[in-house]
C-alpha cells in the first residue's frame, strides 16, 4: 500500500494517479448500487405482493432504534466529510479527531443494530430459526411475514457488513493519519474511503423508510 504517497510506475503524474483512484472508487460504487439493487428489486416485488403483511411485520421492529441509528449514521457522514476537509486543508490533528469520531459513531450504529437483532431473536423473528410471527398466526401470515424478516435481515445484514468493512478501513486510516501521512497533496485514501462511507450511509437512508416506516399509522 501507499507508504508516503509516492507515484506508482504506471502513472505519469500525481494528478493522474489521484484521478484514476477516484474514478475507480466511483465505478466500484456503481457496482455496489446494482449489488444492493438486486435486493431492492426483491423487496419491491414482495412488498407489492403482500402490502398489508409487510406493514404489519414492519410495525414490530423498533422505530426509535432505527431513527436514532439514522441520525447516528448521518452524523458519522458529517464527521467523515469534515475529515476529508481537514486533510484537504492540511489540519493533521483535526483529521485524526474526525476520523476517530466517525469510527465511534459507526460503532454506535453497529451496537444499536445488534440490540435490534437481539430483540428480534427474543421475539422469534429470525427467519428459518424457530420462526413465529405471533402466537396463533396462521401458515400464510407466518410465511409472508417471514419473507419480510428475511429481507430485513438480508438487507440490514449486508449493510452492516459494509459498515464493518468501513470500520476496518477507518482503523487503517487513523493509523496512517496519526503517523502524519496525509497532506493536502496526498489524501486520496481519505477521500475514497470517505466516498465509500457516504455510500453506505445512502443505502441506510433508503433502508430506513422501506423497512421501518411502512404505513406506521
Amino acid at each position, binding site marked *: 500500500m501507499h507508504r508516503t504517497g509516492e507515484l506508482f510506475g504506471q502513472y505519469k503524474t500525481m494528478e493522474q494517479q489521484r484521478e484514476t483512484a477516484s474514478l475507480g472508487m466511483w465505478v466500484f460504487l456503481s457496482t455496489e448500487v446494482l449489488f444492493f439493487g438486486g435486493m431492492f428489486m426483491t423487496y419491491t416485488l414482495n412488498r407489492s405482493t403482500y402490502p398489508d403483511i409487510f406493514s404489519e411485520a414492519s410495525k414490530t421492529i423498533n422505530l426509535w432504534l432505527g431513527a436514532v441509528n439514522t441520525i447516528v449514521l448521518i452524523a458519522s457522514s458529517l464527521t467523515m466529510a469534515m475529515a476529508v476537509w481537514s486533510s484537504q486543508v492540511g489540519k493533521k490533528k483535526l483529521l485524526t479527531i474526525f476520523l476517530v469520531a466517525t469510527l465511534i459513531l459507526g460503532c454506535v450504529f453497529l451496537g444499536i443494530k445488534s440490540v435490534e437483532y437481539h430483540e428480534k431473536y427474543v421475539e422469534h423473528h429470525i427467519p428459518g430459526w424457530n420462526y413465529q410471527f405471533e402466537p396463533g398466526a396462521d401458515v*400464510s*401470515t407466518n410465511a409472508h411475514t417471514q419473507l419480510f424478516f428475511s429481507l430485513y435481515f438480508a438487507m440490514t445484514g449486508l449493510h452492516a457488513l459494509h459498515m464493518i468493512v468501513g470500520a476496518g478501513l477507518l482503523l487503517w486510516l487513523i493509523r496512517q493519519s496519526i503517523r502524519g501521512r496525509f497532506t493536502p497533496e496526498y489524501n486520496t485514501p481519505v477521500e475514497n474511503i470517505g466516498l465509500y462511507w457516504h455510500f453506505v450511509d445512502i443505502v441506510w437512508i433508503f433502508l430506513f423508510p422501506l423497512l421501518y416506516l411502512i404505513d406506521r399509522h
Partner: protein
Amino acid sequence: MVYITLISLFFGVAITAAIVYFFFKYRRTHPEQLGVPIHGDMRLETAWIVVPALLAMTMFAWGAVVYVDYRRAPIDTLDIYVIGKQWMWKAQQPTGLKEINELHVPVGRDVKLILASEDVIHDFSVPAFRVKMDVVPGHYNTMWFRPTKVGRYHFFCSQYCGTNHSLMGGWVTVMEPTDYAAWLSGASEGNENPVLAGEKLFADKACITCHLSDGRGRAPSLNGVYGAKVLLADGSTVTADEGYIRESILDPKAKIVAGYQPLMPSFQGQMTEEQILNLTAYIKSLQSQPVPATGSGIAPATGKK
C-alpha cells in the same frame, strides 16, 4: 416462419457469398500490396441500419399476432386440468376422469389446459401442436390448442425439472368427438367426480360453516361467484377465476371481499393442488345457483364496464 426463414436465408447466403467472393477476388497477389483505403459510406450505413430494422419489425409483428392469440384462449373451451410433479403428469378431464402421462382430447374442439405444479417448474410441451407453456408452482398458467387431426402425439416436459426430467412425458391422443365421449363414459366408472369430491372437501374443511349459501354467514356466499366480478375491501374489483379462487384458499388475506373481516385461516401446505382443483370444480358448479341479494361478494352491476 417461412418468411423469417426466407429473409434469414437471403441475408445468410448473400453475406456468405459476398465474403467468399471477396475472399478469392481480392486475394493478395504480391507481398507488399495494400488494400484500397475506403473508410466508410454514410448512405450504406444508413441503409443497412434502416432496412434490417424495418424487416425486423415485420417479423416482430407477425410473431406478436400469433403470440397474443395463443395467450388469449377462446371463450368456449374444453377445460382440462394438468398437474406436473416430479416426474409425472396428471391430467383431469372435466368429468373428473384422471389420466397419468396420457391426455385424451376430441378433434376440432378448442382445448384449454390449466397448468399447476406441485413442486418445481415444469413445462408442458406438445411439439406436434406447436404449443408449450411453463408450469410454475404457486400460480396457474393456461395454454390452448385446437387439435385438427386424429392420432397420437408426443408430449414432453420441456423445462428442466430434476433427475427424471427426460422421462416426464407421454402421449396426447386426439379422438373423434364421438369416440372421445364414449371413452369418457367408458373409462369414467370408478372415478371420483371432482364436483362431488370438492363438495365433500367443502364440508370436511369446514368451509361450509362460514360460506353459507344464503349469504348470512361470516363469509360471502359462493353462489354464482365463479366468473363474476368481486368487489374487494380496497374498492377494487377482481374477476373470480381459477387463480383468484386458488389464492383465496391459500392466502385468504391477500384479497378481502368488501364488507367482510379477514377471518379465514390459510390452507397453505394443507391441501394438494389436486384438492384445490376439486374445490374449484365445486365452486364452479355453484355458478348456476341463485345468488342471494345480500351476502355475496359479487360486485353490483354499476354503469362501469
